[in-house]
């Protein structure tokens, strides 16, 4: 179980007064200090919880003491069985964690049990759904060299392929008519072990298998505008239609006889290593060393070409540590996992705000070792950060969201080919998610070239940019205006948002929507937190 680190403080809502130092805003591959108006609120994440002292011991304990209707792992393993181990892909955790990765530790423990039981037929699958394939280096980082070298050369460790016509199997249909289609090898195994990292409350549970090992035909049942708008938020499972759909699919999987042993883990929010440690501190507590690190890194970044800056940031490995691990039956495991996520991330906030401000960092789940293109900027701000709430959004309906990010008109051509076309051919016509879904989705989803690149190169699936847009559709419906500070005006306008040069300008523009003397709240994120808004 997760517990507070010695001296670790819970989250904090600070009211800005005249003595409050400027607030740090992330700004892509950089950051800026902004003076927020007196009376504004700044929400800080809880400090990192104490990690498990003996993570391998905790993993072993979880495997032997499963939750829910499940037997200990050794009882589920037998000689001659077909065993599949699936694991979360490159999108988790953020930033990628220092070695050894949690997945490596868990998979090594599982394989030890399998070896003792004499299991020979083992395959390990990166459960990436419609995300890009992981490279060898990324797979090695996730599972470790020992596992990689033992399985990958013989084709026993590989990326899930959602477009392989022979690689998927239809398990059934939910009572709502949702097709349940998952990886054939996983479905036909005597045991499927899913190794998860629950970075945020959205992750895990039935979403691991029903989404991670699935394909377009199944995903479109819940990756759509209607579902996303009915998920309030998708970080709160019991109020998330996205999760209800996945849970219905889980029922079908369960009833089909597929045996799943779920292993879920949680992390503390220790997101940045020593030299960047000031990024997760509260500004008035910055030491002289923190201030020096901020000034030195800001000045250096100002003079650094953008490609090099990107390389510097993407080379950051986070010192996240595991705070809990639980294994066994999917739903029982996930209940405990979610509670542990909430313990680390929840911050109670009283009341909504007229204007919500946020600085967007260089990374989101879909641009690890890649470029944060404008569509991902939208998704990170309006999809992820906006939805990091329980009960009600931090910003009131009709309120204004102000984000800070350079939003360059730049795409990674290998990773995001369909994003380039979505930006040019779809957003130039409309930004309305419903029209986009109705008029454009099918064509992109079924495009043979995108499928080819997804299967053979390192491209996100053709439909993926649509999902990014749907992820923000609840926010688009809720907000009165979206302003991006310091963004490329052309890109910002293409997104349907308003560009502003400075925060002051943005706040002034926002008053046209929310009136004079608005309430302002800033989310000091990352490190990640989730607002429990009362």
């Amino acid at each position: 179980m997760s517990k507070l680190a010695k001296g670790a403080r819970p989250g904090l809502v600070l009211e800005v007064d005249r003595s409050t130092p400027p607030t740090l805003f992330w700004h892509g591959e950089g950051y800026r200090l902004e003076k927020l108006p007196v009376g504004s609120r700044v929400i800080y994440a809880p400090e990192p919880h104490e990690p498990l002292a003996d993570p391998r011991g905790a993993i072993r304990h979880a495997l032997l003491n499963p939750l829910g209707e499940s037997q200990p792992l050794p009882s589920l393993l037998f000689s001659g069985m077909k065993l599949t181990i699936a694991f979360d892909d490159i999108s988790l955790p953020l930033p990628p964690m220092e070695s050894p990765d949690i997945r490596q530790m868990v998979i090594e423990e599982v394989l030890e049990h399998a070896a003792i039981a004499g299991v020979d037929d083992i395959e390990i699958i990166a459960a990436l759904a419609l995300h890009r394939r992981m490279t060898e280096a990324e797979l090695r980082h996730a599972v470790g060299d020992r596992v990689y070298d033992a399985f990958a050369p013989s084709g026993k460790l590989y990326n899930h392929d959602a477009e392989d016509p022979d690689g998927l199997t239809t398990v059934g249909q939910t009572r709502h008519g949702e097709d349940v289609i998952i990886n054939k090898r996983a479905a036909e195994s005597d045991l499927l072990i899913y190794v998860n990292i629950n970075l945020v409350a959205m992750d895990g549970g039935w979403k691991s298998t029903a989404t991670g090992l699935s394909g377009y035909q199944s995903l479109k049942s819940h990756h759509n505008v209607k579902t996303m708008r009915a998920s309030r938020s998708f970080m709160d499972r019991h109020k998330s239609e996205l999760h209800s759909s996945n849970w219905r699919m889980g029922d079908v999987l369960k009833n089909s006889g597929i045996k799943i042993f779920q292993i879920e883990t949680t992390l503390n929010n220790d997101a940045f290593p020593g030299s960047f440690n000031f990024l997760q501190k509260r500004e008035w507590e910055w030491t002289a060393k923190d201030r020096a690190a901020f000034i030195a890194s800001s000045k250096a970044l100002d003079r650094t070409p953008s490609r090099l800056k990107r390389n510097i940031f993407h080379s950051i490995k986070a010192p996240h540590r595991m705070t809990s691990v639980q294994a066994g039956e999917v739903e029982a495991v996930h209940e405990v996992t979610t509670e542990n996520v909430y313990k680390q991330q929840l911050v109670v906030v009283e009341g909504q705000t007229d204007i919500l401000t946020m600085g967007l960092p260089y990374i989101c789940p879909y641009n690890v070792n890649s470029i944060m293109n404008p569509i991902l900027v939208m998704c990170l701000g309006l999809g992820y950060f906006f939805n990091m709430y329980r009960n009600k959004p931090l910003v009131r309906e009709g309120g204004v969201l102000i984000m800070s990010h350079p939003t360059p008109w730049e795409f990674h051509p290998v990773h995001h080919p369909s994003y380039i076309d979505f930006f040019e051919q779809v957003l130039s016509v409309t930004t309305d998610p419903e029209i986009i879904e109705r008029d454009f989705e099918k064509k992109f989803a079924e495009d043979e070239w995108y499928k080819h690149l997804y299967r053979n190169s390192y491209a996100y699936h053709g439909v993926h940019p649509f999902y990014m847009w749907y992820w923000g559709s609840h926010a688009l419906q809720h907000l009165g205006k979206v302003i991006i500070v310091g963004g490329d005006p052309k890109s910002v306008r293409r997104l349907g948002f308003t560009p502003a040069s400075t925060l002051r300008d943005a706040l002034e523009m926002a008053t046209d929507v929310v009136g004079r003397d608005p309430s302002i709240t800033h989310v000091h994120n990352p490190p990640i937190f989730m607002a429990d808004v009362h």
Partner: protein
Amino acid sequence: MKALKFERSVPKIAKARIAGALRPGAGASYGPLSLDETATEIALPGRGWQRVRPRLAGICGSDLATVDGRSSRYFEPIVSFPFVPGHEVVGSLDDGSRVVVEPVLGCATRQISPMCRACSAGDLGRCEQIAYGSLAPGLQSGFCCDTGGGWSTRMVAHESQLHSVPDMMTDEAAVMVEPSACAIHAALSAGSLDGGVVAVIGAGTLGLLTIAALQAFNKPAQILVGAKHPEQRTFATKLGATTVVEPSALRRAVRSAVGCMAMGDGEIERLTGGADVVFDCVGSSDSIQNALTMTRPGGRIVLVGMAGRTTVDLTPLWQREVALVGAYAYGQESLLNRRTFDLAFELVGTADLGRLVSATYPLDRYDDALRHAANAGSRGAVKIAFDLRNEKDSAR
């Protein structure tokens, strides 16, 4: 009379070339173009010729290439110096009636009998005698020393070149008839495009008019356009483009439209399929090479923009059996069995093409006019023209 004259002067052409390369349109200030305020009026070359007082005269891409010293030496034997540029002309006859000049100087204007095969068939643009007959060499009015051109207060035109302007048509609309005829000829030269996918590279005047012509007379299922500037994109959409993207994104848009595969790992080097017809309204090495990457095997590239000397890898032309054809001027359109100029008058009216005239200048501000025309897209303009309606001159 007043006239802008272009003389044969190798050093001045060299200066214009350098100036034009540094700043498009600057060849006007440093090259062989000059304003002659006391020019001698051109004598009528013979029977059937009339005096025309230009009212508006457009500046076209080929004019800009000439002024900036970029024109191919190919033209040397088929022009005669000094000439007065200007072949997009609406003017008045001595009786006050307004006319648009069809500038091609074919067999009829040159008093050549029998006429060549092309002129006999009405295909004036393909005249085989443009350097012969009773006139000095000159492919069109505006490039012939015997006829003058529209950038002046007087020129001459043969009666076979004159088209009456309807009373309801403004001068601004009428000056668009000639370039519209070029675009219509290009749009129809590809044969029937019913249900096809076409791409248009470039959305300057010719590109926009080609879009309008395609929409009006050939109706492909999809017209995809690469347009650089916001105003061009707006006009392209209004005139009938189904998809308008940045020029660099046109290849991707074509791929999406036809659903073909592509060579390249995310970046597209070339398409495996492509558009049925690509209209290259730029005419540079890059645009032709780009057209070759997005034309389907067995497809066609229509060169609408004047090309000049270019370096292009023609391997795809060979391997994919792509036809690269030019589209010059106008005549009789076999697809619709109508005269191109008649279609052009119709299109200018129905598509309201007079709105594409963005600015006009008096002759003595010719360097401003040419710089504006050379940078029209970036300055939010389309067609720039000389306005001769208030020019005062004295016949000499």
